[in-house]
């Protein structure tokens, strides 16, 4: 086996590869840019080599730097992770030329599958079911129109070199084909430097299902079941699961065998993924093959018990696959959420900055057979930088059934505390509770269809609201008990007692309750309209961001954040400001007028005397809340001023280089 490998990547995937390598007794070398000096993968690896400035094009994408790093450290092989150089045939070739093993497929396979048109030709030859379409290079909009009529509407026009939705157009009519063709072509040219596009049939209500394959250098290829990744936002996967709730044994086998046939056709000799688009009728068509480890590979690992990175390393070393197709058994269900640094309530605007709080849920298996796994590359106090993918972590839960895996995922999300930057956990939590997601009736349009107005945190209802009221009551009780212990109290003629009759107010709802201490550390909360009191046990203490405990012996997890006279609770995809009052306090609080949110001025004012270093917007430009508008330097500090709300810039009053006084108008909104 290799004695030392280099990981030509960063973030969670670099950490994940290092973990397996370490378990296999292989030494690891990390590479890092200036922005990753303090990154977790650097800390975890046995050695680390600096490879340049933050921009990926000047560091992680430089083949020579990676090869130099291998030579300097004596690494015998390179794992590329995903992204960056993972699907560059030139990289694999350069490594080979330098006598270093590429932990991935052979360059020919990468090349063959890297081109969408080429790969379809291979797929057709291997009798893989493909979407009806035209594989040749299309010269003109007229030709595209003709092809579209032949295969039937709707059709999709797509960049040959593309990915991630760029250069992609859907057309329902001939006119739309013509328009879409030009647009797709120019987008393809500007995004990929390659203006070739192709046309294919567009599947209505499609689902994204992919097959994991694994091959060795001895001609063996097996498939490890499927993953469904239909929950996507703008073609970016958000939630993945394995297996797929759509497939039956028969379809699974058919898809798997076709994937293996395709892999064999290109002598595939590593882990790879064959992506299919599937109709609701379980028809499926080949989409593309990814010749690398996928982001979502953990769900496959969880249901097969196979460490894909280990297998990649072994086959790269030349070992024969020790697993046969018959050994592959799918066990239980796994769900993965991608946790991103983005603000779901502000149209998923990326968020960067310091992770003031980062407390992932506890990993490992619990007594009911639920496994929680968190693949991450960050730590509390770390930074989400502007230079790379804003993924914070991949949270995976595995359980015997799909619903149990979803339930575990929801709970793990509730236990995942992140602060300092905005993140999508509230959105993911809400998704987990969505009945259509739970029923498994998915399509790639799910998010657009179910959240047409975007996302805002829902208020809790029903039993969820009651559980949150119980949590709030518990916290209030704990604090009150402590307050009673303050020093300097008046000699007690009358003991200070906190009234046990209280009212828990959550947003608009209020619950009359009775709170008292029970045996040992138990707290008993009875709702006036319920017969059975609820018994709460928890070892939560103030200051902890996650409340975890048993309510009537059922585990409940919620995020709790102190607010004035209360606590903000996030649980099961809902969010509410909870206050536990005495009955009298509640009565008086109800008399208080509701505060209208302060009118955010239409002016951006300079918050301090300073020098305008940059104006990042132009007059007439539409901006989203959170977008940077200007940068003002004061006392040599660079302060980025951001839009407080969505709007259009009507006038810009200041320019770069201006010295402004405090409250000087920088720009004006319409």
């Amino acid at each position, binding site marked *: 086996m290799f004695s030392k490998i280099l990981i030509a990547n960063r973030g969670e995937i670099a950490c994940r590869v290092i973990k397996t390598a370490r378990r296999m007794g292989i030494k690891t070398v990390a590479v890092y840019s200036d922005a990753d000096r303090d990154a977790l993968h650097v800390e975890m690896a046995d050695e680390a080599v600096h490879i340049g400035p933050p921009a990926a094009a000047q560091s992680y994408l430089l083949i020579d730097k990676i090869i130099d790093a291998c030579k300097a450290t004596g690494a015998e092989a390179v794992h590329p992770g995903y992204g960056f150089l993972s699907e560059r045939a030139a990289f694999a070739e350069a490594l080979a030329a330098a006598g270093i093993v590429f932990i991935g497929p052979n360059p020919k396979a990468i090349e063959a599958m890297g081109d969408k048109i080429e790969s379809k030709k291979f797929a057709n030859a291997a009798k893989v079911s493909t979407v009806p379409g035209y594989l040749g290079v299309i010269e003109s909009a007229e030709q595209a129109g003709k092809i579209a009529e032949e295969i039937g509407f709707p059709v999709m026009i797509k960049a040959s070199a593309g990915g991630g939705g760029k250069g992609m157009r859907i057309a329902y009519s001939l006119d739309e084909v013509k328009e879409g063709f030009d647009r797709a072509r120019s987008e393809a040219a500007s995004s990929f430097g390659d203006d070739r596009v192709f046309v294919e049939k567009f599947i209505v209500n499609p689902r994204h299902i992919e097959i994991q394959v694994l091959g060795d250098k001895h001609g063996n290829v097996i498939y490890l079941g499927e993953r469904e990744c239909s929950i996507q936002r703008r073609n970016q996967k958000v939630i993945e699961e394995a297996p797929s709730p759509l497939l039956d044994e028969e379809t699974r086998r058919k898809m798997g065998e076709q994937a293996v046939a395709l892999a064999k056709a290109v002598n595939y000799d590593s882990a790879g993924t064959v992506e299919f688009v599937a109709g609701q009728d379980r028809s499926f068509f080949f989409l593309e093959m990814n010749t690398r480890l996928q982001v979502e590979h953990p769900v496959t690992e969880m249901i097969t018990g196979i460490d894909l990175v280990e297998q990649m390393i072994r086959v790269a070393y030349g070992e024969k696959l020790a697993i046969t197709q018959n050994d592959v058994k799918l066990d239980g269900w796994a769900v993965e959420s991608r946790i991103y640094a983005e603000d779901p309530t502000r149209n998923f605007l990326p968020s960067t900055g310091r992770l003031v709080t980062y407390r992932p849920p506890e990993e490992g298996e619990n007594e009911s057979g639920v496994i929680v796994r968190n693949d991450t590359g960050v730590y509390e106090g770390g930074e989400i930088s502007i230079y790379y993918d804003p993924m914070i972590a991949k949270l995976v839960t595995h359980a015997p059934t799909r619903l149990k895996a979803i339930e575990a995922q929801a709970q793990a999300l509730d236990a995942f505390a992140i602060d300092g930057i905005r993140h999508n956990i509230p959105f993911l939590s809400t998704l987990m509770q969505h009945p259509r997601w739970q029923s498994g009736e998915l399509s790639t349009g799910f998010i657009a269809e179910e959240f047409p107005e975007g996302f805002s945190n829902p208020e809790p209802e029903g039993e969820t609201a009651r559980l949150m009221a119980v949590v709030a009551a518990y916290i209030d009780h704990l604090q009150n008990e*402590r307050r009673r212990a303050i020093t300097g109290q008046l000699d007690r003629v009358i003991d200070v007692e906190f009234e046990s009759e209280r009212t828990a107010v959550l947003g608009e709802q209020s619950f009359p309750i009775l709170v008292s201490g029970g045996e040992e550390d138990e707290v008993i909360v009875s709702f006036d309209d319920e017969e059975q009191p609820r018994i709460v046990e928890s070892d939560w*203490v103030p200051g902890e961001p996650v409340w975890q405990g048993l309510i009537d012996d059922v585990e409940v997890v919620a995020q709790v954040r102190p607010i004035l006279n209360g606590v903000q609770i996030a649980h099961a995809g809902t969010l509410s400001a909870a206050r536990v009052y005495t009955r009298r306090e509640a009565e008086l*609080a109800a008399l208080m*007028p509701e*505060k209208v949110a302060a009118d955010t001025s239409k002016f951006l004012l300079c918050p301090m005397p300073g020098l305008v270093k940059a104006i990042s917007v132009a007059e007439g430009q539409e901006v989203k809340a959170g977008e940077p508008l200007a940068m003002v330097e004061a006392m*040599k500090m660079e302060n980025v001023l951001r839009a407080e709300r969505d709007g259009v810039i009507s006038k810009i009053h200041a320019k770069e280089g201006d010295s402004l006084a405090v409250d000087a108008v920088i720009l004006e909104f319409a």
Partner: protein
Amino acid sequence: MKNILEALEERRAAAKLGGGQKRIEAQHGRGKLTARERIELLLDSGSFEEFDMFVQHRCVDFGMQNQDKIPGDGVVTGWGTVNGRTVFVFAKDFTVFGGSLSETHAQKMVKIQDMALKMRAPIIGLFDAGGARIQEGVAALGGYGEVFKRNVMASGVIPQISVIMGPCAGGDVYSPAMTDFIFMVRDTSYMFVTGPDVVKTVTNETVTAEELGGAKVHSTKSSVADGAWDNDVEAMLQVRRLIDFLPSNNTDGVPELPSFDDPTRFDMSLDTLIPDNPNKPYDMKELIQKVVDEGDFFEIQEGYARNIITGFARVEGRTVGVVANQPMVLAGVLDSDASRKASRFVRFCDSFDIPIVTFVDVPGFLPGTAQEYGGLIKHGAKLLFAYSQATVPLVTIITRKAFGGAYDVMASKHIGGDVNYAWPTAQIAVMGAKGAVEIIFRQDIGDAEKIAARTQEYEERFLSPFVAAERGYIDEVIMPHSTRRRVSRALAMLRTKKAEQPWKKHDNIPL
């Protein structure tokens, strides 16, 4: 006998209605609670002992003799407990003669003030009133004077807290102004010496009551208020929270609460708090929250001079005052406003034996004509004075910059810091590298290469904590993650601190 007892109940019931149901409803209609409702929220339930419920005015001028006499005369006074600790309270009753101050009204306040001082317990005043009762003339003014004098007598002996929960104008403003803290309720309270009508007559300025003296103005612009809350309920519950932080008087020491937070807890994330780029700000509040018990921080003057942070927190369950430069605002520079804000806070803590923890990241004093004309020298001197005269335990942590005179001011060893720590990222110097090199090596200014070399030399030698540590100005260079543990242990050791000032009538702080 029974009749007599019932008569008492009837009189009480009448008194408790104040100006009557209609006025109570009007008060609610304005989004405000009545004096007695506010007291109910403020004190432990059932703990209020009311005094002088039946006091009535004795005015016979301008038709007052013909008006109904309302028992209580516009102010509710008494005492009770907040989490078992005695506090005295008076609350202006807007439903009775608009809460206006009469001779007897003032006498009720004075009685409570005298008792609070005698009992060495905090006093809380809730203001919602129309000023002096004009019909009473100089008798009302005399009443104010009596109240003012007692405010001053009690200052530095017992905490005095004022909450403005409605109008507070004219003579009414000066009693709160002399107390330790003023809080306001947003949208329903205002405070000014002369109201919009007089302003219009005298200066021809058109201004609304809210613009002239609303909670926003006083908590962000004038610094008259120490904080603002959304409504009466929030305000009263927050005052309870504040009382839990405050000593009852200047000799009892800070109250103690059981703490759930391990005083030796390491916080590894603090090791990355200081950005690599010295020109990038970071949030000092993160450090405060991660060092103090359970992240619980009661900020004072949050909206004013945000380049410095002041407030109360606990370490090992015991109250500390926190003063910290805020690099997020104006790089944490000291200007006149910040100096005034922090000096008043430091003096409050010193008066009441509250240890002070100071976090330093200060690039110096703010230059410019606005500052100099505004008296930066004297305002800056206030903070220097306040720290220098403080005899309470002073623990100081320099996280990054401590430049120039501002280094001395921020509770340095030289002016009385007891335990002074620095993070390895600290830069303790007269000024930053660029400015320093341009002065020391003026002759090399034309030579970029030489200047660069000199700058590097300066940075290596002076932009570190070690020059100061070599001289003992810094007791120890500490790891950021160990800050809580270090601060806790320092405070524990300093509990027995005894420091005395020479006898003096009082000092002469540069006011």
